[in-house]
């Protein structure tokens, strides 16, 4: 018993900050067979078309059925380099404006047809240049793409208008499934409700909101894969249900992330049964004041709000009860382009001297003429994890600089309606005053990370105007030099912090508890990634 | 029937102002419907079918007939409690069926009502004082609470009730007392005209007499006119100047009460009279009551021709086919009959 707990403790500490270190000793002992049942913590996928969707509720059930062109390395998700999936290899021209991808030969679709560059072209055209009336959620990320061409049946070439380090990362987004050109030619919307790809698993049954079942695709192009005979994904939005499923061993995993308490309960209920993997999550929980409303039009007040937060103390407290932990800025903490911890602490509100911060905050409020006991409302989302819990924490933090904040929790639809209010209506009485906000990205890439904070972004819910931010973003987007880009990103961070249009509280923290029989899966900083399940295998003898 | 035809010689002689109330060609049909939304009318109940009469100031008109003959409906039409299907009701020369609700409210004060059932005619949740005083205070006849109370007390004593019962509730009073409250309520608006809808039918005979006496006293005092609705000829005999007899939505006979009782011209009136007991054993013994055959027909489907013909002992083919004209057969004596009796 004690040894088992120790073992778990060691495991937990092993998979510490950022990247998981999976024991690779038994990498050669993969066993074939078995069906993996996993829980999808959602009420159901909106549509099945990754190109238009943005939610894990689409990725988790559908990713095993598709291949990507290139992907984040499933065995080393934190690596700086990407690896190919359908792409055997790729080359980049010296001006970094031409990318040539070579595609594997002999790849088959589930319907038996051959997959060629034609299919890749059709799929990428749908993502980058969607026809009238077809939605592409990631079109804006590919603004740099000039043309896509296919010189031969196994080559696809992307020509860019300008060089950008963000391009290749955007390409590796797990949503960019390769569809069949023939199918798309017949019906552009086919993939919204149907599945037909080149993935390791072939669809057997899909019952919306209930379950998705796949069987091994025998003609999968990677030799010897997949290991498992099949997969079953079960939709369940309720934590007690999926935790019970994990506990009883009827499901082996849930790939989104469990709150600390559930992790503790599971480990206690079935010691030795689970493997814990954890990582900083590529999601930042932010707070956005409405700068169109008094007194938040005053930058001093906004800065005071940020200064009042004890981020380091909050990390210690909140990490025990919510899925947040890491203190960070706008760039994913731990990414090479992110500021160091020491550098981060020089940022206003990120220092460790809480008392000094709060004194300064109160001073700023005083200068801005905000009285003690000033009241305002914090808009929040009804979801417990982590929104509500962090919201309650923030309210308490502000209380300590003499602000009386009331949290208003809105159901998802009302929450979005509040955030999406057009700029012209931000001054109305019904507009939010201060709101919880967040930034979740699929791949770890600073350019993608900060795209939310530029004023022209569709996700700029503060509706602020700031030419400096816009300029810095565009400069770093085109900056090929690593150090210069890092400096520009830091300038961006500082500008944002100075203006406090929006500021981060903590980054999320992802903890996956899976059955020890499930092997070959590594945690990633994003719950969108690594859902292909190609390399996962089951050790059912244990 | 044109308007001129209903105008009587007498009415032409009398100045218009003398006619307090004039009912012309009054019809009240209740539709019988089917269906939920797109209702279609499948028939009509002809509760009141083309009646005309008038009332002079200070006069009491008795309106008599079996239950269901339309007499109460006539009263309700005059009170504007139901909107008549057609016809005119002239009160002091103005057609009140065409009045706006504001005009109506003003004229309503002058027309009041006393109901049959002293139990259901008083709101059980209100005190006697409130029941009587509500009208004057709502219509600002009395300007203050104290004035209202004084008025209530005055009305109570007029109605022959002790003035201290204004804090009481209806259930604490006897039937006769309640009817007096009803009278006091009707008087509270200083009316010119009161519809007494079977006002004494529900009371014991001894109380009936008291109430009728009271009504007569009040008539004299305030120069009131009464439309006295009853189902029994004997009740209206003493109080009425003239009496109208209704049958199945029609007035079959209207006359001076003396003439009507002495020499009825319509067989129906005769039959009704024969049923009234006479407090003289000798006369009573000699009398032969006329028993009408059959039941009152349904107003939904009234008989063709004279409505009374299926039950009339003197009915002929003429009666079966043609509706008799309601006309003044003798001076001040209107009858609707093909074969009027000659008394």
């Amino acid at each position, binding site marked *: 018993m004690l040894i088992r707990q120790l073992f778990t403790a060691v495991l937990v500490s092993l998979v510490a900050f950022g990247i998981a270190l999976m024991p690779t000793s038994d990498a050669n002992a993969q066993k074939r067979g078995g069906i993996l049942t996993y829980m999808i913590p959602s*009420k*159901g*996928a*909106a*549509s099945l078309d990754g190109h238009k*969707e*943005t*939610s*894990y509720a689409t990725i988790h059930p559908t990713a095993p059925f598709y291949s990507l062109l290139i992907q984040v390395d499933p065995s080393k998700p934190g690596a700086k380099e990407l690896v190919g999936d359908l792409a055997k290899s790729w080359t980049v021209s010296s001006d970094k404006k031409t990318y040539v991808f070579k595609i594997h030969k002999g790849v088959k679709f589930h319907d038996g047809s051959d997959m060629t560059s034609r299919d890749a072209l059709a799929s990428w055209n749908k993502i980058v240049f969607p026809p*009238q*009336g077809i*939605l592409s*959620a*990631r*079109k*804006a*990320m590919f603004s740099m793409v000039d043309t896509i061409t296919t010189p031969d049946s196994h080559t696809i070439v992307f020509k860019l208008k300008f060089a950008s380090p963000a391009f290749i990362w955007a390409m590796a987004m797990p949503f960019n499934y390769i569809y069949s050109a023939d199918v798309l030619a017949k019906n552009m*919307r086919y993939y*919204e*409700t149907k599945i037909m790809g080149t993935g390791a698993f072939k669809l057997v049954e899909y*019952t*919306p*909101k*209930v*379950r998705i079942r796949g069987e091994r695709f025998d003609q999968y192009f990677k030799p010897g894969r997949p290991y498992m005979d099949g997969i079953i994904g*079960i*939709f*369940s*939005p*309720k934590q*007690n*249900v999926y935790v*019970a*499923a994990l*506990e*009883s061993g*009827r499901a082996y995993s849930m790939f989104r992330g469990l709150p600390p308490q559930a992790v503790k309960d599971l480990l206690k*209920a079935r010691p030795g049964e689970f493997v814990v993997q954890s990582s900083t999550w590529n999601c930042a929980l932010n707070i956005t004041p409405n700068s169109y409303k008094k007194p938040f039009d005053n930058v001093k007040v906004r800065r005071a709000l940020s200064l009042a937060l004890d981020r380091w103390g909050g990390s210690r407290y909140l990490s025990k009860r919510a899925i947040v932990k890491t203190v960070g800025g706008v760039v994913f903490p731990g990414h090479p382009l992110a500021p160091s911890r020491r550098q981060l602490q020089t940022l206003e509100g990120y220092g460790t001297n809480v008392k000094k911060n709060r004194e300064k905050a109160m001073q700023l409020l005083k200068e801005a003429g905000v009285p003690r006991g000033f009241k305002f409302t914090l808009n929040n989302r009804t979801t417990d994890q982590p929104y509500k819990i962090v919201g309650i924490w923030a309210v308490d933090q502000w209380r300590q600089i003499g602000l009386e904040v009331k949290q208003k929790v809105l*159901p*998802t*639809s*009302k929450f*979005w*309606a509040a955030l*999406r209010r057009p700029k012209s209506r931000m001054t109305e009485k019904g507009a939010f005053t201060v709101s919880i906000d*967040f*930034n*979740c*990205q*699929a791949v770890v890439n600073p350019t993608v990370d900060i*795209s*939310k904070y530029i004023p022209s*972004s*569709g*996700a700029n819910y503060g509706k602020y105007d700031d030419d400096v931010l816009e300029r810095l973003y565009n400069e770093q987007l085109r900056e090929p030099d690593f150090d210069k880009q890092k400096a520009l990103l830091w300038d961006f961070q500082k500008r944002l912090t100075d203006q406090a249009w929006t500021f981060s509280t903590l980054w999320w923290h992802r903890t996956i508890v899976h059955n020890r029989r499930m092997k070959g899966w590594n945690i990633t900083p994003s719950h969108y990634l690594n859902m292909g399940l190609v390399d996962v295998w089951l050790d059912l003898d244990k | 029937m044109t308007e001129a035809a209903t105008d009587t010689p007498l009415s032409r002689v009398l100045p218009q102002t003398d006619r307090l109330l004039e009912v012309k060609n009054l019809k009240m049909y209740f539709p019988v419907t089917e269906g*939920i*939304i797109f209702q279609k009318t499948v028939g009509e109940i002809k509760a009141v079918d083309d009646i005309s009469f008038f009332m002079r100031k200070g006069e009491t008109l008795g309106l008599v007939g079996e239950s269901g003959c339309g007499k109460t409906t006539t009263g309700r039409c005059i009170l504007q409690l139901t909107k008549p299907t057609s016809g005119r009701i002239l009160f002091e020369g103005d057609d009140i069926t065409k009045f706006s609700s504001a005009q109506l409210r003003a004229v309503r004060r002058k027309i009041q009502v006393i109901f049959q059932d002293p139990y259901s005619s008083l709101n059980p949740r209100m005190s006697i004082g409130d029941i009587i005083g509500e009208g004057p205070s709502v219509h600002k006849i009395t300007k203050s609470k104290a004035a209202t109370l004084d008025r209530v007390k005055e009305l109570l004593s007029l109605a022959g009730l002790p003035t201290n019962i204004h804090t009481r509730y209806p259930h604490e009073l006897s039937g006769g007392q309640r009817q007096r409250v009803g009278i006091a309520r009707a008087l509270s608006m200083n009316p010119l005209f009161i519809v007494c809808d079977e006002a004494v039918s529900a009371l014991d005979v001894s109380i009936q007499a008291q109430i009728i006496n009271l009504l007569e006293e009040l008539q004299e005092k305030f120069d009131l006119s009464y439309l006295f609705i009853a189902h029994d000829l004997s009740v209206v005999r003493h109080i009425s100047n003239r009496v109208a007899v209704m049958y199945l939505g029609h007035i079959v006979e209207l006359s001076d009460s003396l003439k009507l009782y002495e020499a009825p011209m319509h067989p129906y009136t005769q039959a009704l009279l024969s049923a009234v007991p006479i407090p003289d054993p000798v006369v009573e013994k000699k009398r032969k009551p006329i028993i009408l055959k059959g039941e009152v027909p349904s107003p939904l489907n009234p008989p063709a021709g004279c409505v009374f013909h299926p039950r009339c002992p003197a009915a002929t083919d003429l009666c079966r086919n043609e509706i008799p004209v309601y006309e003044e057969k003798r001076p001040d004596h209107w009858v609707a009959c093909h074969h009027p009796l000659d008394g």
Partner: protein
Amino acid sequence: MFPTMFFVSVVVFFLMQMIPGDPVELKMLGDGSGDFSPEQLTLERERYGLNDHPVIQFTNWMFGVVQLDFGVSILTDRRVSEDIAIALPLSFQIAIMSTLLATLLAIPLGTLAALRQDTWVDYLIRIFSIAGIATPGFFLGIMMIIGILVITNSQWAPPFDYKPIWVDPWYNLSMLIWPALATGYRYSAVAMRMTRSTVLEVLREDYIRTARAKGLVEKIIINRHALTNAMLPVITVIGIEFAFLIGGLVVTEQVFNLAGIGNLFVTAVELKDYMVVQALVLIVAFVFVFTNFFIDILYAWLDPRIRYA
């Protein structure tokens, strides 16, 4: 029947129009990282015909409904009828199961309570039934899950994904018996009260006293006379409760994580999936109206005094 249904459609449709926020926008936002232009939004709205005048939208919808086509879900792009076809068998099965449970519980217990009026048996049964009405379905469900977990020492929990009864009867029943119990208890409570009071009423009537006076055995009296006559109001209550069962299912399905009609409804309301909400509300109203119609026929059949032309 049809006018009511039409009114229902009108009310529902225009109620949905009043919901603040745009479902298309909500869908396109997804998890919050969606990035799209206003033109895309307009285009997508165009695709669902949401830019049309509400009256035109309504007319189009009604034309579809008449042909049993409830439109396309804005959220999933699936035909609403498909989603309903998936959810309906599950909810329907729970509804049937809880109706059976309720009837089996309610009629004997209600009759017993009436026969033993004002004894401890009566009191117990009445408290049991009022408790049924007072206990929220979700609380009962949670208690059941806790109970199961405690009794089985966390070894056993009901299945969590639905398989139709004809595919795997045991699996299906071991999953659905719990929600059926949770909704059925409340249901039976209502029927039980009705049974008790109608049996009491009938027992007081003359012909029962006559039967007793004639010396008929008590049991025969109860079965032949009292029950048959008391059945009519009980059937009404059972029928109306059946029509209203979806109300109970809304919460119960949440507790037990069932992808039934109730769940579909709550999700659709949350995400403002117009088409689904409209369709479901219409179906609920239809079930109600149809059940009432069915009860009327049953009435005529059970009671020879009532014959409808």
